[in-house]
């Protein structure tokens, strides 16, 4: 069981805004940055949000991130069919001295 908790699934229709949460603890999200990865079917994961709310070059501004206390979230606005993927949050944990990933959220575009 992952120490970072994500909902297993999320869904939305094209054009909608969806949000995926990631809950942790003081030793991980509470004291380190949160990063988000998108994994399209059959592909390697790709960084979509870093340092809680920064977008790498090439990632559409429809993707945004936020963090407050020991939780964070990834939001996707103007949902498109190409956004259908698995999304993972990740953070360093000071107590465990390792990177933790969330269990992943499967986003379905209806």
């Amino acid at each position: 069981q992952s120490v970072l908790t994500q909902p297993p699934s999320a869904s939305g229709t094209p054009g909608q805004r969806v949000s995926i949460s990631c809950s942790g603890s003081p030793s991980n999200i509470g004291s380190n940055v949160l990063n988000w990865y998108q994994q399209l079917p059959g592909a390697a994961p790709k960084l979509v949000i870093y340092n809680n709310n920064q977008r790498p070059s090439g990632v559409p501004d429809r993707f945004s991130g936020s963090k407050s206390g020991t939780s964070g979230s990834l939001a996707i606005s103007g949902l498109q069919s190409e956004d259908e993927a698995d999304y993972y949050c990740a953070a360093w944990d000071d107590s465990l001295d390792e990177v933790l990933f969330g269990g992943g959220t499967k986003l379905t575009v209806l």
Partner: protein
Amino acid sequence: DVQLVQSGAEVKKAGESLKISCKASGYTLGTNTFARYWIGWVRQMPGKGLEWMGVIYPGDSETRYSPSFQGQVTISVLKSISTAYLQWSSLKVSDTAMYFCVRVGLNRKSSYFDYWGHGTLVTVSS
């Protein structure tokens, strides 16, 4: 462009040894550049999520492992050819998974993986 090119899929039997590779390019002009970034490995078992295995610093080969993988695998690097490795001395069926190498950045205590390899599928049968 930065690229991490991993070795091809492997099919092995339980008890066999294996070493897979991850060759970096696009930021390796001069071995010092490759040496500055930590390289990590991430496991993804069939139908499951991502798991951080450990990292290595090419500059001095300092290595850190997740407690879950300590003693189960060995991470190494050959700086002269900008290549990192992940190896097993005795594979188990439960090692069947996709393995990704990642560029970590300048700080090992980071979940910032800006570049990923395409993955190496390891299949272990009994």
